């Protein structure tokens, strides 16, 4: 039984909710949005590796990566999901730099751009997966 479809909606939902909270925080400046964003982001970042791991188990290991065929949607699903993970990891590392000048507009723009890029890549990965499963 595939496990990846069971797990993958947790990071998707949590990271999407975190993105919404991030926008709300930037729009309103209210502290409670930041707390919610951090909570959703933490759940999403913890469940994302589980979903990735389950995906590789479901596809019987690393064969699609070690022997990629670039006309296959599965390969592009993996590429998009990996890029999404990279975007979120970059945001995670970037936002925790001790030398980061927080509170500037550039900081806010970069934060939102990284989160938006990560979420959009997740949307892309999900759309490709949807075509694989439901497409005709």
């Amino acid at each position, binding site marked *: 039984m595939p496990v990846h479809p069971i797990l993958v909606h947790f990071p998707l939902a949590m990271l999407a909710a975190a993105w919404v909270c991030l926008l709300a925080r930037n729009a309103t400046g209210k502290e409670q949005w930041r707390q919610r964003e951090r909570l959703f982001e933490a759940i999403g970042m913890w469940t994302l590796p589980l979903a990735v791991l389950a995906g590789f188990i479901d596809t019987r290991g690393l064969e699609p990566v070690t022997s990629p065929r670039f006309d296959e949607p599965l390969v592009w699903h993996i590429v998009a999901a990996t890029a999404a993970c*990279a975007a979120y990891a970059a945001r995670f590392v970037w936002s925790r730099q001790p030398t980061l000048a927080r509170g500037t507009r550039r900081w806010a723009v970069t934060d939102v751009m990284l989160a938006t890029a990560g979420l959009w890549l997740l949307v892309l990965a999900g759309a490709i997966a949807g075509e694989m499963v439901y497409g005709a």
Partner: protein
Amino acid sequence: MRRRLAVPLLAVAVGAVFSLPAGASLRQIAVGNFYFQDETVGDGKIDAQVGDQLRFNVLDGGPGTPHTVEVDELGIHSGSLGSGETFTTPPIGKAGTFILYCKPHDQRGHVTTLVVSGTSITTTTTQPPTTTTTQASTTTKPPATTTTTARPAGAVSSSSPTTTAPRATTTTAPPTSTSGTAGGSTAPTAGGTDPATGTSTTTSGNDPAPGADGTAPTGAGETALAPTGRGRVDDALAGPDGTNLDALLERMRGRQGPWTRSLRLSLAALVPMALAAALALRRWPGPPPADDAEA
């Protein structure tokens, strides 16, 4: 300290065109509002080999606008097909280029070309002692590819979009000799013989009698890879076997594979996302309280 973080860019690969295995296959053709499309190729033109079967899966079409599948030269007439219905032809036994059209909508451009390559098959049957000879009637390369193959009854597969099997032309009658050329193999056949009467039936797969509304053309069932005639599209739309990596990998490949539309949909989704982000940043009230020092 300024840092720029590059946003990853995605490149979209154009799929390669894969050669299909030799032998008869069951080809899945999507039928929608004014199109016919090979689901594994998707270039609009329908290519097939002699002996192939075509399964037309009607994906679009309201109750008031049913489609039909018509190939006059091959005697293929499906009758009205609503959304969710399929029509599976008998094996095609005639090479050539044919007009494939939808009768209610051909004036609106619901027409395409069916190109059948290979060697046409003709079959003749004589009375007992009967010898059925199968021979090539036209010449193409490789010459004379007609195959006479014994296949157990029930060895029919219908689920795979590219099911392959030896192209078969059957026929027998007791006492029977069956001739054909396929790498020197000749075998008596079970298919095509009525066990009750011992009479012979001949299936050539070509020029099937025009089917009545939705019925399979006469004599097409014996060598078919899949049941002919009408059916439901549900099977064709079923998802891949989640435990089968090959099924996942082989699905929807092609130059215009349907999965590529996910990129367009995602780009469309990016627009409201970017607008929402821009709107939020536009309303940015200024530096938040000193709560970001959680590093």
